[in-house]
Every structure is written in C-alpha cells, then in structure tokens.
C-alpha cells in the first residue's frame, strides 16, 4: 500500500507528521464514537450503565492513551501551525523537542488528574 509511505519517516520531522496524521485519524474516529455514545443521553439508564464501564479501571488506561493522542495532536498541531504560517523553520528541531517535552508533561498531569479524581 502506498499510504504506508506516510509512516516510513526518514527524520524526526516526518515522524512527527506521521503521528499527527495517525492521532488525527484516531481522534476523528473517537469523535464519531463519542457522539454516538452521547446519543444515549436521551435514555438516562443506558447512559449511566455505559459511563460506568468507561470510568472503570480497565478502561482508564485506554482513556489515558486517548488523552495522549489528543495532547500530542494539539501541541504538535500548534507547532505545525507556527511552521505553516512561515515561522521558525530555522529552529524546527528545537521546537520539536519542546513540543515533545510539553506533551509528556501535560500527559502525565492529565493522567494524574484522571486517576486522582475517579
């Protein structure tokens, strides 16, 4: 398949692109699921039973991964937007590193919040 070439990077830069695409796709799929899921709000009972599953400890790691996708996609998205507006191409490596560090921090924080609260 030719589209597999999207995921055969030669440098960190296009590795970041591959992940942006992957996470974007995952998030979009999740969005569809999410909306379908929320449709059950019309029936409180089904909703409550489903939500009980999603906040269960088995589901939390998955949720946390999803959040990682979201955070990576968002922060990397900001990085891409900066470049797409024509800025900071000379510092692209530094930006990538900063972006990666922020992603990890934000993700650890988010995971902590999720486990803490539930």
């Amino acid at each position, binding site marked *: 398949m030719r589209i597999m070439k999207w995921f055969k990077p*030669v440098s960190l*830069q*296009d590795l970041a*692109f591959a992940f942006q695409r992957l996470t974007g796709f995952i998030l979009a799929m999740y969005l569809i699921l999410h909306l379908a899921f929320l449709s059950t709000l019309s029936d409180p009972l089904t909703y409550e039973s489903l939500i009980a599953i999603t906040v269960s400890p088995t589901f939390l790691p998955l949720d946390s991964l999803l959040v990682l996708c979201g955070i990576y996609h968002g922060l990397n998205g900001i990085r891409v937007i900066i*470049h797409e507006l*024509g800025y900071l191409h000379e510092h*692209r490596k530094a930006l990538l590193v900063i972006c990666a560090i922020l992603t990890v921090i934000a993700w650890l924080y988010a995971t902590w919040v999720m486990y803490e609260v539930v």
Partner: protein
Amino acid sequence: MEFRIRRFDGENSFWQSYEVPTKKGMTVLECLYYIRDNLDSTLSFRASCRMGICGSCAVKINGKPKLACETQVSELKNPIVVEPLDNFKVLKDLVVDFEGFFAKHKMVKPFIVRDDIDYNSPVELIQTPKELAKYYNYSLCIKCGACVSVCPAAATSEDYLGPAALVAAYRFCADSRDKDCKDRIEIISSERGVWRCHSAMACSEVCPKKIEPAKAVQLLRRKAIIHSIKKLFRW
C-alpha cells in the same frame, strides 16, 4: 567495503553486492565508477559534475537520499546500501524518471514576468543586495529530487507539484524584478499545489543545498491565502 545495490534491468528488480577497495577521501560516486569500470559495466547511474552542483547523482544511501558525489564512504557504515530515489519511477538500476519532475517545474512559470522587457535593447534592472537576499537562497536548488523522494505527500499523490517546483515558484514570486506573481499563485494554489503539503518537512531535512524547501512552500501558502482573501473581497 561492501556495496549492496538495488538493481533493475527493465523487468526485474534484484540486489547485487560488490566489494570495493576504498581509500580515505573516496566518495560513493567514485566507488560506483570503480564498480562500473572494473567489476560490472552493466551498472547504470547518473552523474556528471562530481562537485555537488549538477544535481544528477542523488540516490538513496543507507536509507537516506544523498548526492553520491558529496558522500564520503568513510562516514558510512559497512555495508553501504545504495538504492534509487523513492517516489520516482525507476528506469534502470539507479536511474529514475525525471520527466514529471521537470514538467512540474515548468508548470509553475519559473521565469520573470514583466511587460517592459525589450529583447533587443535590454536595460539594467536595479536590485539591491537586500532584495537579492530575499530570494537568493531559493535560487540555489539543483533539482536533484531528494526532497520529492522523501515527501509523504508526493508519495501518494503523483501530481502534487512537490517541494522542488514550489521552491522555484517562490523564488520568482520573491524576486523584485518579477511583476506578475498572480498567475503563478493561482497555479500553486490549486489542489495539486501548496495545500497538499502537510509540513512533514522531510524535504528540508534532506536537501543537500540546505534550501529549506518546506519554508518556501509555507511562504507561498501565505501568499496564496492572502491572494484568496483579497479575491473574496474583490480588493
């Protein structure tokens, strides 16, 4: 050193290994010539200037596109794997088809457009060093194709103009002597143009002339979006 070369004879693709006695200072291109002259004269590859300026000799060396004539073997791990560029049709061995590549370059109108040029009695146009600096870096493209060979957008979209052609487009749009960038903008703003780029920036990473094609594409994108907004408000 062992050279593993991916070959193609018009019908079949296969790998072949050669043992080349290398010395300090030898480039990959010299090794290819050594192979052709002494071991196997059926090996085809392109090369000419052997000083990194003609753009003929870009091949994939140990997975990354490089100019064979500028790559020292001493910097590489044994075995050295040489393959033709990706995203191009292979014609024979390391030789790939550049027809589409040059057609795209031609498509972006890579020449100065202004209506006050008199062929028979040309006059000196004034351009300050500062104006020159605005586009000079982008005029250094040797059309080697390395950028296109790694661009994920070019990998799946044959008709994407690609970083090299877009560099050429930007180079002329940014030239103070050019008076009609609009036509060019319309062309690069098509669905085969800048919008296919997703800032993978592999192009900038591999460009042997350090031109930053990705930046040229984004600066063009900026021009294109301003052009579109202006058009929307008919201004």
